[in-house]
């Protein structure tokens, strides 16, 4: 599950102004989008390669495949042995990560800047070819099955968060399938699926390279041209999901169960528009008003005053296509899901019926901005991610430096309007209680 991370550039007041992210952009002849941000504060760089393929693109009966594939990108290529990516990063004081979302798969490294040249070579290697053998394919698939157990089967609420919310919330769109997959679908995956998937999606015209930190622009450009610009652009079209999620004709309820659930939980979801919608900022503020901090409406009402809930999480999960507005709450001992549902609905209704007071809206803006500064400003990785989301969700990197104006422009009337428009729609309600079988 993943929330949209939109970047806010603006500071709270004039005396705390923040400079915009200064980036350079090139599109190579083979379609690769390249962004660089020069910053010599520390002798390190963050390298991020994003492929526009996510778990929504999992092949039929292969849920979890995009994520399994992400693991295989650490295996052998034409000129790299398995785990050589780790040798080139961890062994020299760097760190290496990858992440599979619904819409994108992101690979990133943080390395001492004197290894930038080597890492651009390596990213070119794995973009151009993968050469995975049967033994490492099977072993890595077992690792992913263990990840499934650690995320889904182990934690008491794993099934609810990682499987049930999306499965029950979407009727048609592939967002309904779990990104972590299922043991059966993972077992069905083959080595030839891996090559097919690489050919279809891992190509320069489906990728975004963002490098932030201690770099010299001229040399950087030359290395990018040499190692990534030389990769051919395939003539085949990139497969795209074209399914759209229909509006919900009626509210729906689901009863889900997991083993060893200590306290019942309840989730409510509504469909919201794509991340590129002009309503996105108001939805993020709605999220903050309802759920960000101890003084947020749901925390104050359900956790503090009425003591109905152990916790409440609110998420405006903005995606490339139809997203979800999600309320999810673990109950306090002795309370019922019906009581909590009633309280959640009462708070949602209030937002639709009356405008949020100015001070409360201001608080929500301040919280969102400060959190974004921490997440998107402090590190090279954070800055790169700000550019990435602007490019992925808005096809426009400038959005990273523009959003704050749009956020500041949101009025109490906008928030009310968005609450009515989306939370006034048909909810899906999921109750989650202890039970032997899933």
């Amino acid at each position, binding site marked *: 599950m993943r929330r949209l991370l939109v970047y806010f550039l603006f500071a709270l007041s004039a005396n705390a102004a923040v400079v915009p992210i200064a980036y350079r952009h090139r599109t190579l002849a083979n379609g690769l989008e390249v962004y660089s941000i020069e910053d010599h504060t520390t*002798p390190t760089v963050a390298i991020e390669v994003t492929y526009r393929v996510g778990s929504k693109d999992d092949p039929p009966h292969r849920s979890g495949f995009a994520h399994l594939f992400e693991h295989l990108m650490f295996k052998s290529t034409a000129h790299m042995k398995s785990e050589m990516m780790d040798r080139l990063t961890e062994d020299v004081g760097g760190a290496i990560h990858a992440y599979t979302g619904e819409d994108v798969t992101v690979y990133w490294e943080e390395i001492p800047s004197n290894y930038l040249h080597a890492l651009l070579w390596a990213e070119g290697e794995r973009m151009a070819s993968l050469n995975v053998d049967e033994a490492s394919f099977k072993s890595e698939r077992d690792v992913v099955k263990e990840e499934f157990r650690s995320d889904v089967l182990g934690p008491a609420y794993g099934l609810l968060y990682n499987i049930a919310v999306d499965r029950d919330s979407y009727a048609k769109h592939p967002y309904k399938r779990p990104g972590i997959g299922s043991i059966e679908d993972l077992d069905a995956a083959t080595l030839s699926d891996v090559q097919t998937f690489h050919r279809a999606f891992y190509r320069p015209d489906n990728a975004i390279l963002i490098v932030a930190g201690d770099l010299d622009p001229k040399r950087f450009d030359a290395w990018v041209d040499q190692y990534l610009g030389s990769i051919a652009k395939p003539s085949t079209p990139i497969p795209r999901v074209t399914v759209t999620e229909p509006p919900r004709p009626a509210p729906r309820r689901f009863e889900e169960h997991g083993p060893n*659930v200590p306290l019942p939980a309840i989730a409510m979801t509504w469909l919201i528009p794509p991340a590129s919608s002009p309503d996105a900022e108001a939805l993020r503020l709605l999220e903050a008003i309802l759920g960000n901090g101890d003084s947020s409406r749901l925390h104050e009402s359900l*956790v503090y005053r009425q003591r109905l809930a152990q916790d409440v999480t609110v998420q405006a999960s903005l995606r490339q296509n139809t997203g979800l507005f999600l309320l999810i709450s673990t109950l306090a001992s002795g309370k019922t899901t019906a009581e909590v549902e009633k309280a959640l609905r009462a708070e949602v209704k209030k937002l639709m019926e009356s405008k949020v007071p100015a001070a409360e809206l201001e608080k929500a803006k301040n919280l969102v901005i400060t959190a974004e500064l921490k997440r998107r400003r402090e*590190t090279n990785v954070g800055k790169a991610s700000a550019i990435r989301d602007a490019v992925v969700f808005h096809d426009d990197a400038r959005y990273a430096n523009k959003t704050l104006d749009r956020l500041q422009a949101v009025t109490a009337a906008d928030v009310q309007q968005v609450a009515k428009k989306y939370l006034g729609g048909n909810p899906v309600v999921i109750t989650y209680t202890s039970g032997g079988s899933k």
Partner: protein
Amino acid sequence: MIALLFVLLAAMQVETTPPPPEPPRPVQLPRPVQSTLPNGLRVVVAEKHGVPLVAARLLIASGNEADPPDLPGLAEMTAAMLTKRTTTRSAEQIARDIEVLGATLDSGADWDSSFVAVDVMSSRLPKAMGYMADVVLHPTFQNEELERLRQQKIDTIRVMLKLLPKLVLRAAAQVVYGDAPYGHTGLTIASAEAMKREDLIAFHDRYYTPANAILVLAGDVTPAEATRLAEEHFGSWKGAPPAPVPAREAKPPAPRVVIVDLPNAGQAVVVFSRPGLARTDPRYPVAQVMNAILGGGLSSRLSEEIRIKRGLSYGAYSFFEFRRKGGPFSAAVLTKNESAAEVAGLIAAEMKRIAEDPAPADEVAARKATLIGNFGRSLETNAGLAQLVGQLSLYEINLDEIRHYIESVDSVSPAQVQQFANELLAGRPSIIIAGDAKKFVDSVKKEFPDAEVIPASSVK
């Protein structure tokens, strides 16, 4: 001419090996400054400008270590109650006031300290400092709020005891330390039920004193401004340093092999654990290098053998919990229930290998680089910087260690690693395996005939 031709040819060919690194550039390390107010409060400032944010931490140098034996978790309950009402403001006002600034306010306790943490934009720091001081100096520990928090904490513990990684570490502390001071892992349902308002007030009176506290400010703030803010908000704070915590000298019990049965658990977790090192132990650098080789990350031996070669786990790790005294050294691996015994065998084999054979020099060099890189990255955020200088100050380690850390890690030799591993890993560890016991109890008992089975419900 020939050289030029060679260069041209090389450029035309695909490079089959990664280009070599260029010369490294020096790392810039922060230079925190420490001062002490007349009332004994230590103030540590680590400047980092560029982003208008500050991480503020008020540390009390007493945590769960100072809990009375019959009230484990008193430190964390006391800290959690700070924000629930002061002499002038209600819990709701406290939350609202801080959040209007866009700031966060958090409080809690670990073994060696209690803390109040504020993250805020630098322009709002003066206001936020006022709120921080209010909750530290003027909490009221009101009964109604205590009752509310008590119920919440009990529910949290209920949830936690069904969460395998948490459950197993609770069980491990009890097995490894028994009645010795580190034998508990904080609040239990029983202690939460037993705590009274007077207990919290007594803890606060005794330990929340300026001479037992450290104020850390990291980020967009100058030392002059920090000192001014510290004096303004904490200058009138009074109180003597606390008497030392009464020593509870108890020897850790003999190692055991314990299976914690949680029927229908979707996975098992295998833990090897034994007493480790104090943070101030001079062997700290060699211990870190040893751990990095054994189980400190994705490139460690445990990860290589258990995850990469055999696909038995998503993550296989070992870790020290460095505390004022020797906290545990543990290895922990989540795996499917059926693989628990195999994983235990693999952990044991790797611990034996690192103690018996010196690690190859290139492996040691690579893991040292990882440690040094992690250290540098931890200083990129205000929170990381505040954490580091706060810990140094807490353990009364010279702040100059920041500038010597890289060198001290770099100087560790393979022979030192082996010798250290040999000392640390001598004798049996305790082994704790939690999961759906029926799926692994037979195979584990084959290897460890003395393994005991306890129900998950017996873990407090």
